[in-house]
C-alpha cells in the first residue's frame, strides 16, 4: 500500500523568509487527515508544493507515488483541489466553470454533479462576478467533489459557507470517508476536524509540531483537574508535571501532565478530597497551546507587494 502524501524535511523559502522549515506530513490511504496551524503557518504553501505550483528547496515530497513537480500533469488527473480563496472568471457561469474544471481533470460524474448542485443549493447559471464568496466556494466544492479521484486536497474549503452549507459539506465529506477516499483537509474549524478526521497534523512556523490521532494527542497531553479539598493544600507547586496551578482557599484548579497524575492525586487525597472534576483538555486548549503567540510568516510566505497596474 502506497502512502498518498508523504513529505519529510520540506523546506521552502521566499527570499529571506523560511515559509516551510523542515515540515513532515504523512497521509495514509483511505484516511481523512486534518491539517492545522495558525494563519501563516505554511499550510497553503505546503499544498502548493504538493500541487507542483511551487518547487521545494529541499526535502522529499511524494504524492500518489510520484514527484509532484515533475509528474504534475499525470498526478493532477488523480486528485481534486479546492482552494480556500476561490476567484472565478467574471463572465463565466458557475456551471461552465464546474464542467471546465471537470473536463480538464479528465472527466466527472454527471449524476454526482447534479446531486451536489442540488445539495449545495447552487444556481449554476449565475456569472462569476455576481456570486458571493460562499457561492464561489460552492462552485469549487462541486467541481472538486464531483470528480472520481483518489485524493482530495481541501484548503479551508468551508470558508464563507453558512452553517447550513457547512453541515452539507460535513455530510458529503463523511460519505467520502465511508467510501474510503483519501482526504487532506486544512481547516480552522475544530468541530469539523473532530467530526471528520482520523488523524491530524499541527504545524507552526513551517514546522510540524504534532501529529497523530485525536485520542493520542489528547492522551499524551494534560488532564485538567478542578477539586475542592478539606483544607488548603500545601506544596502542590513543587510537584513535577504541574501547570497553571490556581489555589483559592480550598479550591484547586490545575493542569497535570498525564505522566504525573499519580503523584498529584496522591497529594490531593492526603489533604482530603470533597469534590473532584477531571477532564481531558478540550481541542481548543490543545490548539491554543500549539498556535501560541509567536510571530509567524504570512501564509503565502511573502509580504504584500504593491499591486502593479495591469
Amino acid at each position, binding site marked *: 500500500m502506497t502512502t498518498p502524501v508523504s513529505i519529510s524535511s520540506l523546506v521552502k523559502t521566499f527570499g529571506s523568509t523560511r515559509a516551510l522549515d523542515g515540515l513532515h506530513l504523512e497521509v495514509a490511504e483511505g484516511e481523512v487527515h486534518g491539517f492545522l496551524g495558525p494563519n501563516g503557518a505554511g499550510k497553503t504553501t505546503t499544498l502548493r508544493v504538493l500541487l507542483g505550483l511551487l518547487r521545494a528547496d529541499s526535502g522529499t515530497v511524494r504524492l500518489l507515488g510520484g514527484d509532484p513537480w515533475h509528474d504534475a500533469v499525470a498526478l493532477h488527473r488523480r486528485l481534486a483541489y479546492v*482552494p480556500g480563496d476561490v476567484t472565478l472568471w467574471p463572465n463565466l*457561469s458557475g456551471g461552465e*466553470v464546474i464542467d471546465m*474544471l471537470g473536463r480538464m481533470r479528465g472527466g466527472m460524474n454527471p449524476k454526482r454533479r447534479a446531486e451536489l448542485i442540488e445539495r449545495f443549493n447552487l444556481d449554476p*447559471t449565475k*456569472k462569476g462576478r455576481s456570486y458571493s464568496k460562499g457561492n464561489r466556494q460552492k462552485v469549487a466544492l462541486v467541481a472538486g467533489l464531483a470528480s472520481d479521484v483518489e485524493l482530495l486536497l481541501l484548503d479551508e474549503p468551508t470558508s464563507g459557507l453558512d452553517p447550513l452549507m457547512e453541515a452539507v459539506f460535513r455530510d458529503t465529506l463523511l460519505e467520502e470517508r465511508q467510501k474510503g477516499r483519501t482526504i487532506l483537509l486544512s481547516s480552522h474549524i475544530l468541530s469539523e476536524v473532530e467530526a471528520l478526521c482520523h488523524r491530524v497534523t499541527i504545524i507552526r512556523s513551517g514546522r510540524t509540531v504534532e501529529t497523530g490521532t485525536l485520542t493520542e494527542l489528547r492522551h499524551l497531553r494534560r488532564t485538567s483537574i478542578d477539586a475542592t479539598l478539606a483544607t488548603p493544600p500545601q506544596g502542590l507547586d513543587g510537584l513535577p508535571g504541574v501547570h497553571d496551578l490556581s489555589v483559592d482557599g480550598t479550591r484547586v484548579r490545575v493542569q497535570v501532565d498525564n505522566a504525573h497524575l499519580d503523584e498529584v492525586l496522591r497529594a490531593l487525597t492526603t489533604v482530603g478530597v470533597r469534590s473532584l472534576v477531571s477532564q481531558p483538555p478540550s481541542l481548543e486548549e490543545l490548539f491554543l497551546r500549539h498556535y501560541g503567540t509567536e510571530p509567524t510568516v504570512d501564509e503565502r510566505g511573502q509580504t504584500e507587494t504593491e499591486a502593479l497596474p*495591469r
Partner: protein
Amino acid sequence: MSNHLTGTWALLKLALRRDRIMLPAWLAVLVAMAAGSAAATIPLYPTLAERIKASETINTTPPVVALNGLIYDESSIGAIAMVKLSGIGAILVAILAIILVVRHTRSEEDTGRLELVGSTVIGRHAALTAALIIGFGTNVVLGILTTLGLIAAGLPVAGSVAFGLGWMSVGFAFAAIAAAAAQVAGNGRAANSLAITLLGVTYVARAIGDTAGPRWLSWLSPVGWQQQLRPFAGERWSALLVSLAFTAVAVAGTYALAARRDLGAGLLPDRPGRARGAAFLGSPLGLVWRLQRAGLAAWAIGFLLLGLVLGNIASKVGNLLDNPDLQDIILRLGGEKGITDAFLAAEFGLASIIVSVYGVQSIMRLRSEEANTRAEPLLATGISRLGWAGSQVAMALFGTTILMFATGLGAGLAHGLALGDVGGELGRVLGAALAQLPAIWVLVGAVVALYGLVPRQVVLGWVVLLAFFLLGEMGPVLKLNQWVMDISPYAHSPKLPGPTLDYGPIFALVAVAAVLTAVGLVSFRRRDIVA
C-alpha cells in the same frame, strides 16, 4: 452632496502614493519629448525660406497630415517643431489620462479594494472625485512643465503657453471621457477599451477632416480642438473654451451616471449564463476562446472600419497633391500609385503599433490570471503549464493576425472599389498589412519572455512598446543614430505595399519572436506560481 465627497482627500493621497513612480516617469517622458524635439528642430531651419519649404512639404503630404495634423503658419519654426507632438504626442497625453482615471475608479472596484475602502468613512463620490482630481491635476502639471520646457528650448512664450494648454485640454477631455466610460462599462479593461476606442475614432475623424475633408470632422476630436488652438501660428485662444465646455459637460454627466449605479455594477444588468459548459470548454484553448472571442470580435470590427477609412483616404491622396516639386518626386517614384502605396505603408505601420497593444495586453492576461489565483485551480488539474500559457500565446498570435487581416481587408476593399480594381488591389494590400505581423510578434514574444523571467514586472512590456514606438516616431527628429533606431522591430517591418519585398528581415523578426517566446515559456515552466 458634501457628504458624498467625504474622504476624497484620503483617497487622493492613497492614489498619489500608488502612482509615485508611474506619474513622474510618464510626465518626464512627455515633457522631454516636447522640449527635446523643439530643441532639435530649431537649428534645422534657420532661414524663412527653409521653413516654408519644409512646412509646404509636410502640409502637402496627406499621409503625414493624416498622422499628425496641419501646420497653420508655414513660416513658424514652433509650428513645424510641434506638429508631430500635437498629433501623436497628444494621443500619449490622452492615454495617460485614460489609464490614470480608470485605474483609480473602475479597476479599483473590480479588485474589491474600493469596497474595503468604501466601507470606511468615504462618501459615494469620493473615489470618482479623487480620480478626476488626479487626472486634471496631472494635466495641469504637464501643461505647466511643457510650457516651461518649450520656452527653455527657445520657442516664443505665447505659443509655448498655447501648446501647454492644448496638451492640458486633451488630458482634461480624456480624463472626463474615461470617468464616464468607467461608469458605463462593466469592468476596468472594458472602460479602458471604450475610452481608447473613442480616442481612436475621433482621431481618425480628425485625420479625414485634415486631409480629404469635410473640414468640420476635425472639430469632432479633442485632439483637433487642441490643434485649433494653433500654437505658434497666431494663437486662437477661444478653441480652449470648446475643450473646457466639453470637459464640464462630460464630468456633470459622469456624476449623474455614478449616482444611478451600484458599486461594482455597470449600467447594463447581468443576464444569467449557461448552466452547462459548451463542449469546447474543457481545455485551456477553449477557455481562452470563451473568454476573449467577444473582445477580439469587437477589436476586429474596429480595425475593419479603420482599414475602410484608410483605404478610402489612400485612393484620394493622389488628387490632393498640389505641390509641383513633390509631384515630380512622386512621378519618379512610380507615379500616383507610389504615393498611395507610401500612405498605406505608413498607416499600416501605425496600425501595427495599435495591434501590438492588443498583443501585449493579451499576454499580460497570463499574469493577471496568475496573480488573481485563477490560474491555480486550472494548473491543479490535468493541464500542463505549457498548455495553459501556450494557449494564451496562441490566442495573442491569432488575434493579432485577425486584426491586421481586418485592417488589410478594409483598406484593400475600399481602395480597390475606388480604383475599380478590387481583384488586383485586395490581395496586394492585404499582403502588405499581414507583412507587419512579424514585428508585432516580436513584441508578443518580449512580453512572454518578461512573463516567464520576471512575472511581477511584466508591466514593463508597455515600457518596451512605448520605447519602440518613440524610437520610430522621435528618433529621426532627435537625430538618433540609425543603429539605435534599428533596435525597434518596427524599423525592420517591410514598407508595403511598395515595389520591393525583402524576405530577410521578415524571417529574422519571426526568428527573434520565436526565441523570445520559447525563453518565456521554458522559464515559466521552471518557476514558482506566484501571487
